[in-house]
């Protein structure tokens, strides 16, 4: 069988009020960002439950990026400040159990920052490409998992 080249598949949880619009803007400006990302729109970065990240990884995506409004710009005032605390511990915990830090990223991107969004996604996908396919939750003792 012909070998198909592996391409990373990543999920992006992007805040409706900023990063999602940022990604939209980079699209309308015809800036290119890799098609490796599947974007899920969320109402606020504060909506992100660590479960989203872990389940995505468990279901086999190679990376997860979460992006919200810059501190001070959250549509709900403090969603991203609360999220920031959560993200800090999530990161430390995932690292501690041995999940490569390159697979999970957090960023702040505003609605006006189309180019930044494209760049962030680019860099993230490249980082994930370097660490390789996510086999963390694979179980070689069983087929097809």
């Amino acid at each position, binding site marked *: 069988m012909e070998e198909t080249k592996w391409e990373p598949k990543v999920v992006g949880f992007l805040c409706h009020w900023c990063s999602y619009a940022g990604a939209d803007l980079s699209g309308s400006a015809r800036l290119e960002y890799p098609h490796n990302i599947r974007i899920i729109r969320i109402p606020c970065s504060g909506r992100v439950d660590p479960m989203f990240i872990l389940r995505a990884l468990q279901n086999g995506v190679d990376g997860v990026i979460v992006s919200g409004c810059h*501190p001070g710009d959250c549509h709900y005032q403090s969603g991203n400040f609360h999220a920031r605390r959560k993200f800090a511990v999530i990161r430390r915990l995932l690292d501690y159990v041995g999940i490569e830090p390159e697979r999970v990223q957090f960023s702040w991107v505003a609605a006006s920052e189309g180019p930044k969004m494209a760049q962030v996604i680019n860099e993230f996908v490249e980082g994930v490409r370097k660490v390789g396919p996510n086999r963390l939750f694979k179980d070689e003792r069983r087929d097809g998992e």
Partner: protein
Amino acid sequence: MENRLKEEAGKLLKEGKVDYIVGYGKGSVKFRTSPLITNKEEELENLVINPFIANNLSRYPIELKARVGIVVKGCDSRSLISLIQDKKVNREDVVILGVPCEGVVDIKKIEKHIGKDIDQIEEIKREGENLTIQANGSNQTLSFKDAIFDKCLGCEYPTPLEYDVLLGTEISPKPDMEKSLMRIKELENMDATDRWSYWREEFSKCIRCYGCKNVCPACFCERCFIDVNIPQWVNTYATWQDNLVFQLIRTLHVAGRCSDCGECERACPVGIPLRSLQRKMVEEVKDLFDYEAGVDKDALPVFTHYEDTDPEEFIK
């Protein structure tokens, strides 16, 4: 201490200051103690305080939904304070009977040290800094420090931080962090792949008894995410993947509330080193937000507020 406790507990019940006394009684297995919850004065005779009082009783006030006179050690007091911070327990509804604690004996450690099963041990006696263990008719000594739980070795708050009655004299802390955190340091020094395989192996053993969450004083949700079926976050049957995800989420839920009482690990029937997860987060929360769970009943719980200066160098 024991007599003083019986006396104080009796007074509380008699004067109608509390509905229940929550303390320790003799366990069904040798040496061990188990929670004693009673509203009858005559049962107070069975209260004990000894080096085996391992249980953290602080979740009972939530379950009893009554005024409770409760016996706490240093670490337990932090769990209770944490519950007060989270408004799960009213300070006015509890009368705290504090026990200054030098460490709780881990019977498993004794078994390991002397190479005998608990059934063969006839007596464990404390003599100063040592324990004399009589097994199969012969005596062996063991230093007290070698017989207590790892968490006790690093205890910074041996005297309860909040109490109405202190049943003994204050004890000054002598934490030996290096010993207490040894396993965590070992894990930190492994590389990521080895760490992952380590946890994967450990969680392959998990049978999802939920002992860890049922015993945990910081796990107080009325409906745990594990029981939610729309959406069903985690499969209810035990695969190592789901077991691990379950525990990671639980770890995050109790981060900032966990006071390293070690009950999760003690309750685990298959011996997963859960404290190595929870205690690690205690360290991280302290490092990130300069916050310690359950040391100040008036402090805001760490994840209910934020500071402008919170670390964010990891956010791109």
